[in-house]
């Protein structure tokens, strides 16, 4: 059975190669779309986890980090640091600005930090030294061809790109990091706001605990003793952002991924059907020789599975290459093709598609008359 299926595949290798490539491309489409969805969630999660701290303090009622306005009173930092078990509370704030020339504008989250919460390790340039310095993400750098030393003008205020980092994007936009001095300079020297108090100067506190401090106990103490705040572990806040991302992108990604599975099913069904159709003469011979229908169908299934074994790794490789291409060309996106759970889902989906695709030509085989074995093709 295995030998027959293998020889049928190798008999016309161009056809088998085209078949495998078509199945691989269908698998790659599914993987890329899933990877794109997973990447969106992974980015949302990383935004919080990359900031550091063992606890995060937010305005009461605010349970997300991204795309929400959290505003804490200035005294909150002092109050949090006074609690037993708290070593330091690092301030961080952020607000959206729009950067770029007319016709090519791009939203940018300006993340303002002091002693913690800054950019991930730089891939180019240096860290922030004064209020005019800004660290940008590679996504923004590529989109606008910005390099260390270049100006970055926001609301008529000129920052200078000091360094470039990566993995600082989410929700189709990127982050830029500035110091509190930079933010104050921006507010005072630019026309960004008529009144500095319109912007939250303190959005979150990243809390470091003293060695051996009980995290749950400190969380409770902050909630009890500091008014109008909510406290989260970074993981909790990250999960809230992921959940929000799923609420946001889940439906559309669900539609697109369902479409891609449908394509996969059609492609595999088509290939198996066309293959059986072409080999009806062979099946006629097999029937004339006494092979039973179940045996022939098993042969078709084995052949389909062999194709899948060959096509799946190619599909994963193609998807990985495309993902690398997307992330290289537009680092604002993350396409997480190799996420293990996603791979298992897609593999299971492909196996189901293969079985369904293999069953499609069942009627065609059943109707094949053994007499065609004696006809010249």
């Amino acid at each position, binding site marked *: 059975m295995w030998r027959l299926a293998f020889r049928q595949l190798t008999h016309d290798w*161009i056809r088998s190669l*085209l078949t495998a490539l*078509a199945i691989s*491309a269908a698998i790659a*489409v599914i993987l890329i*779309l899933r990877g794109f969805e997973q990447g969106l969630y992974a980015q949302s999660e990383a935004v919080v986890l990359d900031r550091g701290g063992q606890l995060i303090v937010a*305005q009461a*009622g*605010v*349970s*997300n980090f991204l*795309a929400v306005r*959290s*505003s804490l009173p200035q005294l909150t930092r002092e109050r949090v640091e006074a609690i037993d078990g708290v070593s330091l509370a690092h301030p961080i704030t952020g*607000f*959206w*600005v*729009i950067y770029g020339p*007319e*016709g*090519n*504008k*791009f*939203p940018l989250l300006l993340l303002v930090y002091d002693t913690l919460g800054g950019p991930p390790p730089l891939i180019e340039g240096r860290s922030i030294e004064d209020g005019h310095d800004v660290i940008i993400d590679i996504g923004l750098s590529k989109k606008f061809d910005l390099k260390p030393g270049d100006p970055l003008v926001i609301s*008529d205020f000129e920052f200078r790109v000091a360094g470039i980092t990566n993995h600082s994007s989410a929700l*189709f*936009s990127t982050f830029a990091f500035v110091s509190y001095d930079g933010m104050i300079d921006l507010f005072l020297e*630019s*026309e*960004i*706001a*008529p*009144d500095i*108090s*319109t912007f939250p100067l303190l959005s979150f506190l990243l809390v470091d605990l003293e060695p051996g401090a009980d995290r749950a106990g400190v969380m409770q103490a902050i909630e009890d003793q500091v008014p109008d705040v909510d406290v989260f572990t970074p993981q909790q806040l990250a999960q809230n952002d992921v*959940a*929000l991302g799923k*609420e*946001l992108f889940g*439906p*559309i990604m*669900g*539609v*697109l991924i369902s*479409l*891609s599975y*449908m*394509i996969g099913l*059609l492609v595999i*069904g*088509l290939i198996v*059907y*066309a293959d059986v*159709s*072409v080999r009806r003469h062979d099946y006629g011979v097999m029937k004339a020789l006494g092979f039973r229908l179940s045996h022939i169908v098993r042969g078709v299934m084995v052949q389909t599975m062999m194709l899948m074994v060959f096509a799946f790794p190619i599909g994963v490789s193609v998807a990985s290459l*495309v993902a690398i291409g*997307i992330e290289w060309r*537009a680092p*604002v996106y993350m396409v997480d093709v190799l996420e293990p759970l996603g791979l298992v889902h897609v593999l299971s989906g492909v196996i189901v598609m293969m079985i369904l695709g293999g069953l499609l030509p069942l009627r065609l085989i059943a109707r094949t008359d053994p007499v065609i074995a004696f006809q*010249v093709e």
Partner: protein
Amino acid sequence: MLRWIYKTLWLQKGPVLSSASGVAAAFVLVIALEAAFVGESNQIVGYIRHANADVWVMQKGVSNMHMATTFVWDWKVKRISELPGVKHATPILYVNTVVKAGGRNWFAYVIGLKPDGARAGPWAMTEGKPHPGAGQIVLPRVYADMAGIKIGDKAEIADKAFTIVGFSEQTFSMANSIAFVTFSDLEELLSISGTVSFILVDAQEGQDPRELAQRIEQQIDKVSAIPQERFIHNDFQIALLMGVEIVSFMTIIGSALAALIIAFTAYSQVARRRRELAIAKALGFKNQSLYLAIIMQTFIITGLALAMALLVSWVLLPAISAFVPQVTLAVTTASLIKMSLIALAVALLAALVPAHFVARVDPISSFKV
């Protein structure tokens, strides 16, 4: 030749149709992905489009609404309303944040309305009242469908609870739905006073909005004044540009998939008809004629697939939006024309492999059994 192509395809109706279906599905996926971004971009400018101010005034340096932050001193509203050519100036406060209701969270534009600011409020209601009072909120009707919330239920923004008093139509968007509260509630929420976010300026009859925008920028310090159409264009572009690369990459891979499917089908057809091709060659048909036949075959399959894809896009995608209200898919003529041009290239590309096969067919094989 045409008859031979027709007969060849007709005899293989099943594989040809399933091949065309596979290609059509690949085309539909590409159209759907672009439709998702266009649809969402349309929704994002929904508020601006329906508010329909002649000129939008905001903080200097800002030129759009989506994800923007803008604050303008409130005394400028009066100054603007007194300018020649201005019929009315309506201020709104605006923040982009998360609204919680029915146990679910949504990103939303929250618009703060003055008591006399009804013209900046919801334009179509399903239920309840359009203008919220203190502590009240008007939410998109889609929220009610998705979360089972009803009039009188509570919604939260940060730590402030609002009573739902109305559900509006055409205000839902995956990225930015629109919620309406009072101006003073939003001021309290943002801990600010004395500023507004945008000023919606209605021009007097006969007043050119572009001239009015210029006049506002000349006479009012530190503001940007943008006519309605330009403002819509700015927001639409910014939303669309956020997904442009992913759409391009998916177009490439979707097209490659389509090309492979067609190549596979065309190759299968010619491989089956090796003997016929050999006879044709023995009878004096030149390779060029056979290449042309193969190209026509791939064109026919691609044309069939394209027709199916356009039909499905026309019918299925609006239906998806109807059944999954969170998803807005908008198919544009430009997108369909682009897909047609891609299909043309796909058909040509797909003909390469079978053409290579045809070139290698030996006429002598027609005499072998």
